[in-house]
């Protein structure tokens, strides 16, 4: 065994930090990149399949409706500043406001999921009608898995903050949750364009 020579002392370093200094943030980033890649590939596949059709949607398939998807977009847009507020409160260790903010976030996420259910119907095509329908359902359902997983997370976090032993590092986790939220909402925008606008434009 080599002799050790002490050259540095790290004992006074903080044991909780926010953002990219925190180890957990990198895990969140990793999963965002993975899921983002998957969704981009789904979008590319959708566009690839469109070359097999003369019209898009194919003849005989109705265009998607816009009502519910627009409601979803609005709900998502409204949620963003709320989550930004929640993130800032978490960075100030404001336990009381974070608790309420997490409840509100859970409500928003539930709304997303419910609206997503109706958004699937708004596609006006079934997954087994033709390749257009299959590709539409793939993009929208794949994004729905993000919504569902995030619902588990935000509900769990809310439960923790109301009922459980809260530690300082959990505030960092709330900030990470907000970080993921922006991605989840942001990546929906191009999918919305491809799924609900493109068939109406072409």
């Amino acid at each position: 065994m080599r002799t050790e020579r002490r050259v540095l002392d790290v004992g006074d370093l903080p044991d909780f930090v926010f953002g990219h200094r925190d180890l957990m943030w990198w895990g969140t980033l990793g999963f965002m990149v993975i899921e983002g890649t998957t969704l981009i590939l789904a979008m590319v596949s959708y566009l690839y399949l469109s070359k097999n059709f003369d019209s898009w949607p194919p003849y005989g398939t109705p265009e998607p409706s816009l009502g519910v998807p627009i409601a979803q977009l609005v709900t998502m847009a409204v949620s963003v500043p709320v989550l930004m507020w929640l993130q800032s409160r978490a960075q100030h260790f404001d336990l009381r406001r974070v608790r309420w903010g997490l409840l509100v976030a859970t409500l928003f996420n539930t709304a997303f999921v419910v609206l997503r259910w109706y958004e699937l119907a708004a596609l006006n095509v079934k997954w087994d009608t033709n390749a257009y329908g299959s590709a539409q359902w793939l993009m929208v359902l794949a994004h729905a898995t993000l919504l569902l997983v995030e619902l588990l997370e935000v509900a769990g976090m809310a439960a923790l903050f109301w009922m459980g032993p809260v530690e300082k590092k959990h505030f960092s986790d709330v900030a990470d949750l907000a970080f993921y939220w922006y991605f989840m909402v942001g990546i929906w925008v191009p999918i919305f364009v491809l799924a609900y606008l493109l068939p109406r434009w072409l």
Partner: protein
Amino acid sequence: MNPARRFEVVPVQAGTHIPVKAEPAASREAGPADVAELECTYRPPTGVWGWLTTVDHKSIGKRYIATAFLWFLLAGINALLMRLQLVRPENGLFGPDAYNQLFTVHGTAMMFLFAVPIMEAFSLYLVPLMVGTRNVAYPRLNAFGYWVFLIGGLLLFTSFYLNTGPDTGWFAYVPLSGPQYAPGKRVDVWAQLVTFTEIAALVASVEVIATVFKQRAPGMKLNRIPLYVWSVLVVSFMVIFAMPAVAMASTMMLAMDRLVATHFFNPAEGGDALLWQHLFWWFGHPEVYIMFIPGLGFVSEIIATFSERPIFAYPLMVLALITTGVVAFGLWVHHMFAAPLSLMGRSFFTATSVFIAIPTGTQIFCWIATIWSGRPRFTTPMLFAIGFIVVFVIGGLSGVMIASVPFDLQVHDTFFIVAHFHYVILGGVVFPLFGAFYYWFPKFTGRMLSEKLGKWHFWTFFIGVNATFFPMHILGLDGMPRRVYTYLPETGWGGLNLLATVGSWIIAVSVILFLLNVLRSWRRGAVAGDDPWRAATLEWAASSPPPTYDFADIPVVGSRTPLWSSADLPVATGLRSDRREVLVTTVLDAAPDNRHEHPAESIWPLVMALAMGVTFIGAIFTPWAYVVGFVLAGIAFAGWAWPRGVKPEEQLRPTWVDRAS
């Protein structure tokens, strides 16, 4: 060396928050870690429970390696049986159905269950030790990744031994693998096997990236990390961008075509058979570099140690690794030259496929330079490293040949291709892998493998590989296509097939010699000591095998070859011994930044993996499995994430806060 620094807590506004400060290190005099307390903090539970709940990257790494090697042996037996069937024309040992399962499971297991996972497993073991930390970034996630991998392998081989193994080739082209032409559940098994292995691979990649970026020893700037760590870092990025393609294509598209009648690949409803090929090979080509690049990392470490000098031109080597990883994403269409695609488009992929030879060639030239200017010792690991170059270059050269469209149109889907990829895989992946086994076995177990048996192993493997696969180049040029369960006598292919089969027996003998070596040396090999090879990298500063916590105090480095730069080991003290703390450093310069507590043993990763198992195996039969799975995963997630063992003084209590905040 940097003087001890004091770091400020995260700034907060006065009066509106619960005052927080860094938890002071227990018993805070600036002294080295209390080893006895560290041992206690890191002591795992004993018995089966300990085995099921471990979060130690070394335990997980070792069992991961052993499991992956088991799949290698089973898939290798498939290969021996395939060679037996092909030993002479019109042989009746296996009919077409059995043979199709044999070669599909051989390829699928080798690619998805052996080659990539064993490289990941090595990285999960070695990376924390090489970068000077105590564990990977997410210890429970690591355990989860292993269990998911294990379930995937059990799924594939159980199905195969029950005669419902997949039978449409390891890349399962549609429409052959679609609902109409592949009835039953065989291809669904394949699709979910891909899901399990893909989850495990992505988990390992996230671990490596986070660990390498944020948990390096102070002073280990990015341009000081070992070349092996660079190689697995590059590969981890590649996995993240490549794996989702095959996961989506197999689980979300092909499985859905088969289960719920989507039409992704059904031309009658606008689906597209080539969409499968594009998605698969977007993954499939980087996949082979994902297998190969860690091998390059192994070879760099081995050649450096046994030439007693650092690898020549480190920056060029790093650039070569990164270039290979990036360019690997631009080659995929060369698997599709015979498909209906535009001729113009194909030329681009010829150019990229030829170009990728340049960074790999660069590495080979640098290794030769290193050996020439060094003081080489021809131990078994070094023999495997040199053997890698001798065998791999043949595969690399045949690879450049098939980058040419006119030539590839002749040999595509023939035994020439089988020869090519076995040369690059056996040469580029398995030779370095065996070298790595001999090199790091002393670190894993504290004992040396036998050099004598090692040399016998090396030479029989070298001869066996060449005897089996060189004739296949000729068979391909003689017109023998791939994936045929038999051939007619008048083709004249019998002689070379016989030679290849005999070669396969020689390979089998060499693998048996290796297993004998491992079994004998595990308990009775020569005791290794910390650093039997006089190597340069940090893992050799830990004991052999290392303690659960890897290092009592975190090393501090000032060069690329820390153990050659100073006789003693500079360390950083100050991490707590009463809980599992690691040091988090900055990404580029590895300056100490904060301390992070790692979790202790937990059963929840296994529970979550079982939930995934139920979900995806259920999804072979019904899409409702995803609904059930979501609920199960939710439960497992709750168990995993809910904090346990929180001391009361660390809990926060709500206070009324100032409205102005």
